[in-house]
Each structure stands twice: as C-alpha cells, then as structure tokens.
C-alpha cells in the first residue's frame, strides 16, 4: 500500500497543480516540490526499512485484479534493485523541481504537471510486478517526456522530441509483440494448454525455469529475448539505437536532461535485468556464453558503447552533447557487466546504473548552470572560468572526476566491478574496453582545461558564481558520489541478496 501511495502521489499532485490558477506560479512550484518531496520521504523510509537479508520482493501491493479478461493484475513490489532505483528517482524529483525554479519561462503550470506525471510513470515502472502494468508505466513516461522536450526544449526541440518518441515507440512495439508472445505461451506445458494465462512477473520467472514449459523452450527464449532487448536497447541506449540521445539531451531543458540521463536510461537496463535476464536465462546464455559471434554479442555491444561513445564524446564541442555521449560510454559498462553474468559483473552493473544516475544528473545540472549564465554551450567559447567561479569549478571537477572513474568516488566502483566480472568471461573484449577509461579521462580533462583553465575569457569577467539554489541541487548528489565511493557496501547491502538470487536463476539452466 505504501508503495502504491508513493507511486500515485505525484499523479495526485498533477491533479492539484492543474486545479491551481495559472497566475500563481510560485504556488505551483511549491506544490510540485511538496508532491515530489513526499515520494522522497517514502522512498527513504522504504530504503531504510527494506529487509536486506532476503532476496524476495517486499512491500507488496496486490495482486489486485485489474483487467480480468486478460488476467492482468495490479501488482507492485520491490526487491533490492528496484528500491535502489526508486530512491534515485525520488531523489531526482525534487532536485529537478528546484533546478527548474527559475529557468522555465513559459507555462510553468503545465510543465510541473507533466513532470509529476512523468514521475509517477517512472516510480511505477520500477515497482511493477505485472508485465502489462510494467509496459503501461513504461509507455506512460513517453508522453510527458515528449511534451517536455517538444515544448520547453531548445531550437530543434520538435525534431528531437519526435525522434525520441518514434525511436522509443519502435522499440516498445517489438517489446509489445514479445510480451504478447510470452502471455500466449504462459499456460502451455508440453504443448498442451492448461490453466489461465498470466502477465505476473514472478510467476513467469518460475514458469520459464520449469522443465517442459513453453516459456522454457530455448528457441522461444532467444526470440523473445531479442524482442525485449531491442525495446530496452533503445532506452539504454545501445549502439546503433543511440542517436536519439544526443539530440534529445541537447534540446531538452536542464531538469529534463537530468531525468533522461538519470532515470530513463536506467529503465532500459533495469528492464534488461528484470525481464531479459531473470525471465529468459537461456536466451541470455545464447548471447553471452562466449561461443562464436552470438555468444559474444552482448559483451561486444557493451564494448562498442564504451569505446564508440567515448571517442564520439572526445570530438564534441558542445558541452551538453559531450556529456550525452559520455552517458553512452558509461552505459556500456552496465551492458558489459551484465553480460558477465557473475556477481562482480552484475553488482558492478547495478552500481553503475545508480552511480551514473547520480553523476550524470550532476553533470547535466552543471551544464545547465553554465548555460543559464552564458547562453551557449560551446566548450571552446569559454576559458579561465576557474578564476571567476571557483566553487562552480570545484564541484565540476568533482563530478568530472567521479565520471571518469576516479577511485574514492562512486563512478569507479561500478566500472571496476563490471570490468572485473567481464574479464572472467570476455578477456579480449574487456581489455579493449579499458581504452574507454583513458579516453574518458581525456575528454573530461580536455573539457576542464578548455572551460576552466587558462586565462579568463574577457567576455566572462562578470559571470556570476553558482548560487545557493544551484548548490542545493548539487550537494545531495555530491554527497552520494563521495559516500558510495568511500563505502560502496552502503548500496550493495541493498541488492546483494537479489543479485545472488538472480545468479542462481542464471546458473540453474
């Protein structure tokens, strides 16, 4: 019940915001902030009271019958992985509201309402235990995102929004087909239909591991795996489905970029873990067993993301686009870690999801701070800001260092574990992937130099230092970056058992 409350409070907030008069902008912002702070409080409560010693899902609500005709149920619950991502989502909510406080010039009311709808979609997605519900929430994020980019975005916002929308839709259509295939096969045992069909994820996981069940058929698993995989791959994004990301990021307003990088990309990798890995372990094995081309294909995609994303980032001169491409590179570590199928790799991948959410959120907020002042993002157009904005420079350095994987900060742990795990199975690809570590350092340091070092560009002699509100959005993320870098067990405690459980499933085949 608590969980459902948390999911739908932002939706309630949306209704409230829509009922407020359009003129009272401050009120709209405050109400939105409150309706994002409540889920945060609940998420913190869930995080604290989550029983770390078991792998099972907790805080169930349901299953409550929803659409009886198709045996679709309202069923939510969380395990270690989802509670971590729920916390991240709930944390970024108020941060984004605060970050949007001053720089959304038109239609603040609609903006905030859409944002709250988006938050419900994201929270629901991470908690859904029914495949259909999961899909509904997945799609539910699409609509507000489309408008948020398309209306409040930069000059090419329409192009970017359409591209984002169509791309994701293309992926989710394949996912829908795969989902229906799973549903239709969910009651077939040894070729005979018995009992009711189901969308229930825990049930489906059990069925897919049952000898003789249609879902356990290796060929079936491979095809369904591909369907879901493409759906999620667009979201992650995995090469070659990534080109919507730089456009969407560049055009989206700051807070929306934060959500995009911080949460939406994680929906893709979360889906991979929740559905592709847990439900179709034989399908996964086909793409990660290290035999032949297909057996290395998932790791290969991870490698391509890392190296390709990093090199593309190195060539960017738009600050935001650089950060966008760096996201592609960093998500590659998640894919590589998942492909490893061992505890180091999967733990590393999950940590990387969370840490990338925190760090990329910081990076986009920082880009936003600069953009709000200078009204451009051309890296070569700055220079010497270190003398003018020391605090901003310090925080940016922290975020860059975390992102380039400096030990002691959170980015390192996920990356290192993913690589350690992957090395066990894909030695050659993992060694090649380490190129990304050097290139990652190169583009961040080069950016640092071009923007902050050197003599101060006379154009920016009067650039104001980062203000208190902006620091407020960055400090919680900075603290998380340091805490998780120094004490990674803090996060790993949450999902250690879930990962062990998942590995048991993967090894059971």
């Amino acid at each position: 019940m608590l969980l459902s409350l948390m999911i739908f409070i932002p939706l309630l907030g949306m209704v409230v915001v829509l009922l407020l008069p359009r003129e009272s902008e401050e009120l709209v912002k405050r109400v939105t902030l409150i309706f994002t702070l409540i889920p945060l409080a609940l998420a913190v409560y869930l995080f604290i009271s989550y029983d770390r010693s078991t792998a099972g899902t907790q805080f169930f609500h349901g299953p409550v019958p929803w659409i009886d005709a198709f045996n679709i149920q309202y069923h939510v619950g969380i395990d270690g992985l989802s509670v971590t991502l729920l916390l991240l989502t709930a944390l970024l909510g108020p941060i984004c509201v605060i970050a949007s406080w001053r720089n959304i010039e038109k239609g603040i009311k609609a903006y905030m309402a859409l944002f709250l709808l988006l938050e419900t979609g994201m929270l629901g997605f991470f908690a859904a235990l029914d495949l259909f519900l999961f899909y509904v929430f997945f799609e539910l994020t699409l609509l507000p995102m489309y408008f948020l980019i398309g209306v409040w975005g930069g000059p090419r916002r329409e192009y970017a929004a359409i591209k984002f929308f169509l791309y994701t839709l293309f992926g989710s259509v394949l996912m829908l087909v795969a989902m229906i295939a799973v549903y239709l096969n969910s009651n077939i045992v040894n070729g005979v239909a018995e009992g009711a069909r189901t969308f229930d994820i825990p049930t489906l996981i059990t069925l897919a591991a049952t000898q003789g069940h249609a879902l356990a058929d290796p060929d079936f698993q491979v095809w369904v795996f591909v369907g879901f995989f493409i759906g999620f791959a667009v979201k992650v994004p995995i090469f070659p489905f990534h080109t919507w990301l730089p456009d969407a990021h560049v055009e989206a307003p700051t807070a929306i970029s934060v959500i995009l990088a911080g949460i939406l990309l994680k929906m893709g990798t979360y889906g991979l873990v929740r559905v592709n890995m847990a439900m179709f372990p034989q399908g996964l094995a086909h793409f990660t067993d290290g035999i032949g081309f297909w057996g290395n294909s998932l790791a290969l995609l991870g490698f391509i993301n890392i190296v390709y994303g990093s090199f593309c980032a190195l060539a960017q001169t738009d600050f935001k686009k650089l950060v966008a491409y760096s996201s592609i590179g960093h998500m590659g570590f998640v894919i590589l870690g998942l492909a490893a199928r061992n505890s180091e790799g999967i733990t590393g991948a999950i940590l990387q999801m969370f840490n990338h959410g925190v760090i990329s959120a910081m990076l986009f907020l920082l880009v936003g701070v600069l953009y709000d002042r200078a009204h451009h993002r051309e890296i070569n157009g700055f220079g010497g800001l270190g003398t003018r904005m020391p605090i901003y420079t310090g925080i940016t350095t922290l975020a860059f260092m975390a992102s380039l994987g400096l030990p002691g900060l959170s980015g390192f742990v996920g990356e290192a574990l993913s690589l350690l795990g992957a090395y066990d199975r894909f030695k050659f690809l993992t060694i090649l992937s380490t190129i990304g570590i050097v290139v990652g350092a190169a583009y961040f340091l080069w950016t640092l130099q071009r923007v902050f070092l050197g003599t101060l560009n006379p154009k920016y002699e009067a650039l104001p230092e980062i203000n208190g509100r902006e620091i407020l959005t960055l400090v919680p993320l900075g603290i998380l970056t340091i805490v998780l870098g120094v004490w990674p067990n803090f996060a790993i405690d949450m999902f250690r058992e879930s990962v062990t459980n998942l590995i048991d499933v993967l090894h059971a085949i």
Partner: protein
Amino acid sequence: MVVSLIRIILLCPLAAFAIFGLLGLANRRFPRQDYLSTAAMLIALACSFLLLREVVPSPEAHTVDWLSLGGVTFSMGFYLDSVTVIMLIVVTLVSSLVHIFSMGYMHGDPRYPRFFAYLSLFSFSMLFLVVSDNLLGIYIGWELVGLCSYLLIGFWFEKDSAANACKKAFLTTRVGDVGMFIGMMMLFTKFQTLSLYGEGGIFALAASQLTTGDMVWLSIAGVLIFCGAIGKSAQMPLHTWLPDAMEGPTPVSALIHAATMVAAGVYLTARMFPILTETSSLVIAYVGGITALVAATIAIVRFDIKRVLAYSTISQLGYMMLAIGAGSYVAGLFHLTTHAFFKALLFLGSGSVIHAFHAMHHAHDDEHDHEHADDHEHSDEHILGAEIPPDQDMRNMGGLRHKMPITFITMLIATLSISGVPFIFSGFWSKDAILGGVLGRAMEWNSAHHYILFGMALCAAGITAFYMFRLIFMTFFGEPRNQEMHDMAHESPKSMTVPLLILAALSLPVVNILWFNDTYVKPPPQPHLHAPQHAYVSPDSNIGGKGYTVSLFGVSEAAAAEEEGGHGTDGTHTDDGHHGHGPAHAIAMVLSIFVAGLGIFLSWLFYHRRTLSAESVATTCRPLYNLFWHKYYFDEFYDGVLVALTVWKARLFAKFDGSVVDGIVNGVGFVTRDLLAAFTGAFDNRVVDGIVNRVAQVTWAVGGRIRRIQTGAIQTYLFVVLAGIVLLILIFRAL
C-alpha cells in the same frame, strides 16, 4: 594502538582538506589553512615516529570488509612492516618540511590557502597508498595522488603551459594505470582476491597454487602491474609528463614529483616483489636501467634548473627500479629513502634560488609593492610555455654562493650525495648498494643481462655526477652572468632555509641508520624467481651463494637465507643479499667512486676551469646533442602521432555517428513519413490494431500537431490523458 595511530595519521591531513572543502562550498576560508595543514602533518609525523617502536617482527594486517558481494569480499586494511614505517616517516617528514618551506615560498599567492589544502589531500592519499594491505587500496591511493598531482601541477592554471602539463600528467599516468588495472583483473580472476598478505592473500596463494606452467601468465601479470609504476614513476616510455610537471610550484615538485609520489611506483614494485618472476624482473630491470641512462643524458643539456632536476629524478627512479628488478630489494628501497631527502633538498634549494630571483623581479617591476603576490609574473612570464622562465634559467645565474650561502651549502651537500661521493653522504651508500647488488646478481647467475645492466647503471652514475656538478658550477660558481638579476638576489627567509638545513642533515648516513641494520628490513622471498638453468651456481660457491649475506660493513653469516630455505630449493635466489656480495660489492664500490670522480672532474673542466668547451663538444657531436636536446623526440612522437591519431579517430567516429548512423535513422524516418502520409487520408478512419498503423498514427499526430501545441493546450491534453486512464481502468474492471 597501531591501528589508531595509523588512523590518526590518515585522518589528520584528510580533516585539514575536508575543512577547506566544506567551508569552500559556503565561499569561506579557515583563517589559517597553512597552520592547520602544517599542524596536521606534524601530528602525522609524530605518530609515524611512534609507530617505529610498534613494528613487530611478524607484520600484521588489519582489515574491514569494504565491498562484499555474494561470493567475494574486497577488504580494506592496513599492513604495517618495517618498509611501511620507513615510508610513512619519509612521506610525513618531507611533507612537513615542504609545508613549512611553502609558508615562505608561496607567501602572497592569491590561492595560498588552497595550496595547503591540496598538500593535505595529497599527503592523505599518499599515506593511504603506503599503508594499504591490498591492491585495490593501493590503486585507490594511487589514483588519488594522481588527482592531487594534477591539481598541483595546474595550480597556476592561468598559464597555458601549466594547464597542458597537468592534463598530460594525468593522462600519461592513466595509460600506465590501465595496464595496472588489467594486471589486477588477471590476478583477481585467478585468485578471487586482491588482498596481498595473509593466508588468503595473493602472495600465499601464488606461492602454493602456481606451478611452473603458470610462469608466463604470472610474468605477464607482473609486468602489467609494473605498467602502473612505469606511469607513476615516470619510467620510459611514459616519462614525458614529469619534466612538464615542473610547471607546478617548486615545493610541489619537491614533495610530489621528486620525493614521494613518483617513488610510489618503486614502492609498488617492491610490494609486488614476492610474485616477480625471472622474466618480469628482467623487464623491470631493463626499463629501470634504460630510463636511468637515457634520462641522465637528457639532463646534461638542459638549462632550466628544474628540468635538470626532473630528469635527474627520472634517472634515479630508474636506478631504484633496476635495483628491484635485479633482486636488490633492500638497496632499491634504501635508495628511495636517501633520494627522497636529497632530491627534496635539491628542489627546495632550486626553489630558494628561484624565489630570490622572483623577489628581484617584483622589486624591479614595482618598487613600492615588494611583498605583493607572485601570481602576476607567473601568468605573464610563462605564456610562451616551452620557453625557459628567466628565473629558472641557469644561464642567468652564476656566483650565487656568496649571495645565498645556506642554499649553496645545503645544495652542495645534496649534490655530493646524489653524485655518490664516498663515505660521508648517504647517496653513496644506497647507490653503491644497488651497483653491488646488480653486479652480484650478474656474477652469481653469470648473466650477460645483468652485466649489461650494471654497465648502464655505472654510466648513469658517472653522468649524474657530471650534470649535477654542472648545475652547481653554473648556479653558484663563476661570475654572475646577469649582473642585474644577481644584484637583487638574496638569501631566503628562515621558513625556507631551516627546512633546507634539516634535509641536509638527513643526507648524512647516520640518519639512515635503519638501513644498515640487516635485520630491520628484510627482502620477502621470491618463490617464483628461478635462476636461469645455465647459470646455476653451487650454493658453496664463493661468490654469493647460500648462507652469505653481505652487509655494508663486511660479510656475515645470514640468517635470512636459512629462514627462507624452504623456498629456495635451488639455493640461488635466497641470498638476494642485503647490499650485494663480497667481491661484487668491493668491485662496484671502486668503480662507482671512479666514475663519480671522473664525472665531477669533467664537469669541473667544462664548467668551472673552462679548459674544455661544452659548445665545441656540442658542435662536434651535433646529432647526439640534438638527440639529447630534443629528449629523444618522445614528445614529438606522442604529440604528432599518438595524440593526433586519437583526436582524428574521435572526429571520424563522431562524423560517422552524425552522418551514417543518424543518417540511416533519418532516412528511415523520411521514408516512413512520406509513404505513410500518402495513406493517412485514406486509412485515417479505419483504425486497426497493428504495428504499421500505430506508427502511422503517431507520425501523423506528431508531424501534424506539434506546431500547434501551446501551453494552454497541454493542460487539455493532460486532462484527456487523466480521463483516459480513469476510463480505461473502469472499462477494464467491468470486463
């Protein structure tokens, strides 16, 4: 007690930095960050001395779980043995002295508090690296010192040369670090742990599990770990960042880029000693030997006083690597210690000279504002980057010994020490221990490789004496070359000269007494090191052989060899020896005294008596001179080939991404839209479930309506969506 002392040592400097960082967020400063940081360092120093008494014969590790997965746990902990304690003392001592020196040297800098905060962060990271008992902890400290080095090289980041140098340092060392990380992955995959010590540690597992069939694998892992050391300790071919790192303030050069951080590579290699094989040892020794020789030759032709010292550092680090690669564990670490003191002294001394010239500049530029900030001329003078700043150019110096007597005397002591002038200077003993060790191994194994390495080391020793005295003669002797600058020069304030005097005292052997105690520092066994078959020497052989360890003061029966007898079935590797073997030691000592004397004598002829002319030699050996002057063209190769290739590749990828990958996407989009647009009108009313139609619908909706979207309309949309959701729920519930 031990653990709490180590905690205090780590926490003091960390707290000093944290206070700076936290107050910085509120745009405030602790009133005296310099006192705070220095006090933190002095406390750490005192605790390090207390630890000296605490070292027990069997080293202990204290660990906590840092990162626990289902099956694997990475623990973090401290490991304390005699080497750790000596390193702790060296780091805290040099760091404290550099802190004090900086109060004078950095006085008036606009970022003065920040400088001390960075020094604190550095000290913490370095100390963490030193006490870590596992590879992951070492790696964490390793990268953090890299960060501090980056921040401090770029301390005067307004200068483009400094901004370039700090980036170069970070990236170059990171290349090595990636190698180290791959080595760690290899070890982890094999042993499922990154802890080094104890029953479940890598060393114990490697000793018990590995067979001769694993030696190639272990050699590769060893060399990969050593890659990290190549980067951090500026060994060939990753050495080019260190000379550029001289863009940082001189106290930083002394602390980080001479005494401590760059020596971390040597420390790491020494820590990995138990898993070094014959092949990896030889690779290490050759890298060290070549670096020692090549860097020394480059130093001969430099005119920038700091660059001479930088190449000298590279060369001396090569010496230490050579020692460890050749099995002279104790000698390598001994040299690390002595070098830390005399090289810190040389850098601080050069800082004192530069400071004297600086102050002159101020007086010259602005008669009235004598005390004013140093930053202005830093940003102005260094604009040209590669040009030598006039206050560091030895061609502007000369005759300074009368003006700056304390600086002169202390630097002379350090120079005598580094040149290996016999008996009363510590550098002689440590260098001789290395030479003796290498020659000892050569004779014992009858190995041509080690004779070659000994030859390299000996040449490098001679060249070192030559270029160091060249520095002394050019700076302190002769007539002033730039009278105007000379007139204004003066001795530095007490905060700067006192650290110089202390460091000078530390260059005397008596202070390094621990190294002469055979039982205090003992080399760990090397179970995987087997002497080459052909070179097998009977244990009874009179050169080396089992049962003999040679100390600096004579041959004695060695207990160490017998203790390690269990590992040493063939008896050839156990006697590593403390400081070389009897005859080897004597031969090495005579030869080293000879080459040092020769180097100093030639230097005197060239740069003091001027009987020989450096210019004419340079003209006669033009190609060789060019090679040295251009630093063997490493920078040209890296900048012109590697960096250019990387950037070209990045642009290519980005172009590919924009035109090909995205081009396909846009192409598909156009085709879909155009095709579907033709059908939209006809099919609009016939809504059928299906993929094609869905895409069409969306395309139509998106393409047609987005232009009309106004903020007011959004709210209508939202209500429609909301109503839709409610309706859906109701309808489906009814079904």
